[in-house]
């Protein structure tokens, strides 16, 4: 099962992230002063950019995991499970990025949504990786699923700069300045900068904890699948009249009785 070191480091990271997030919230909501331009709204800066950074970090990890699985020399199911775990956490954080961005946008720009390049790219990222997760739920044997989702994860990642470039041109070639003009962005200094830095650290730590947890679940799921599969094979082998048996095992965990290709 889970090694002791893994479990303890996961717990330690969990406790540390809890403390860090609490500190960020307290500093962000009460200790730091309101901004000259943005007023109280500036407090959202301690959560929104860090959450967005974690989303991109998570997709980066997904791509690295996918590459490591696809490269034959480093091929190991672990990489694929890591990629999947990171993608799921990434989708959660992308959702949060969109939500907090929208909440910020409403009072700052007067609209919930604007077709800004960054926003649109993030929205597309959200859908891209939802698709990746949907593809993972397609029944297949572990290797087949790993290959397919690694490729999908990698292609999705390669698509991001193309999407971004197209949206940037879309918004700039046919329209003047974007909403994110520099005069609106607050000047950061002193304790505000410290709080922002703390925000980045604490949410990254939350990501690490979630990734470790999600990865552990994926490993356990894989083990259950393998154990049940071994057991079924063993049972089959013991039956003397396995040829005459028509009933196939009911697949309540995975579709390992699916015909695999080649």
């Amino acid at each position, binding site marked *: 099962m889970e090694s002791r070191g893994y479990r303890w480091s996961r717990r330690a990271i969990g406790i540390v992230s809890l403390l860090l997030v609490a500190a960020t919230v307290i500093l962000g909501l009460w200790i730091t002063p309101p901004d000259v331009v943005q007023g109280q709204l500036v407090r959202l800066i301690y959560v929104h950019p860090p959450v967005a950074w974690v989303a991109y970090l998570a997709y980066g990890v997904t791509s690295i995991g996918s590459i490591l699985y*696809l490269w034959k020399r480093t091929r190991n199911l672990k990489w694929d499970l890591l990629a999947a775990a990171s993608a799921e956490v990434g989708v959660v954080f992308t959702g949060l990025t969109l939500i907090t961005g929208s909440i910020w946008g409403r009072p700052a720009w007067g609209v919930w949504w604007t077709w800004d390049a960054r926003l649109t790219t993030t929205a*597309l990222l959200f*859908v*891209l990786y*939802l*698709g*990746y997760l*949907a*593809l993972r739920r*397609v*029944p*297949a044997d572990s*290797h*087949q699923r*790993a*290959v*397919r989702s690694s*490729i*999908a994860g990698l*292609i*999705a990642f*390669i*698509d991001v700069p*193309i*999407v971004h*470039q*197209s*949206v940037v*041109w*879309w918004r700039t*070639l*046919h329209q003047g300045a974007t909403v994110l003009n520099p005069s609106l962005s607050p000047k950061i200094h002193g304790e505000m900068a410290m709080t922002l830095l703390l925000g980045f650290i604490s949410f990254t730590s939350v990501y690490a904890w979630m990734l470790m947890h999600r990865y552990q679940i994926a490993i356990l799921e894989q083990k259950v699948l393998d154990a049940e599969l071994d057991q079924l094979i063993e049972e089959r082998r013991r039956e003397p009249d396995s040829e005459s048996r028509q009933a196939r095992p009911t697949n309540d965990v995975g579709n390992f009785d699916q015909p695999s*290709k*080649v």
Partner: protein
Amino acid sequence: MWRDALLIATKDLKIEFRSKVTLNLILPFAFVVLIIFAFALDTSPGTLQKVAPGLFWLAVLFSSIFSVDRAVAIESDDNAGDGLLVYGVDPGGIFLGKVISVFVQLFLLEIFLLLGVVVLYGPKIGGWLLMLASALFATIGLCAAGVTYSQLASGSRAKQTLLPLLLVPVVSPVLLAATKAWQDAFAAASSLEDPWLRLLIVFAVVYLALGAIFYSSILEG
């Protein structure tokens, strides 16, 4: 690889010629989409003329989902694709063949669809060279990404729902770039220097390469 690609393409086109799925199902569907758009928007000529390029490419995008799904389904039904691999057909060749076959079908569909757009929406058409070039690369991009994703989603019982979810966000830059390129073409400022055309070329090249590299892993994986 190229010989295999041509073989697969002619085989698929022959199947298409006999079954006429594109002609009987996908083309009428695309026309329905054009009509439905007019319902959803406004029939005043100004509106439809302005959005004609976007609607055209949306209709093409929707149709391409059916086309690529069909192209891959030909092989996954009865595990015919495994047969091809056993015969030693190059997987990259299968990919290119599928892309060529879907490309031919979609390009023909686009010609008919353009006639429909001209008749129904009445936009002022011009800049033929840019139009043709951007349509060419946009269609290649759609086909390459579409065939790759269709193969990725194949084997799933929910593939008809999964494929659009996977494919549409990926090809969204194609929709955007092709629409803008056509808008530029229709406006007086039409030249092959158009940045949107460059984006379409990049997309087509990237996805052709990705498909050719990964197709064998998807098939054999």
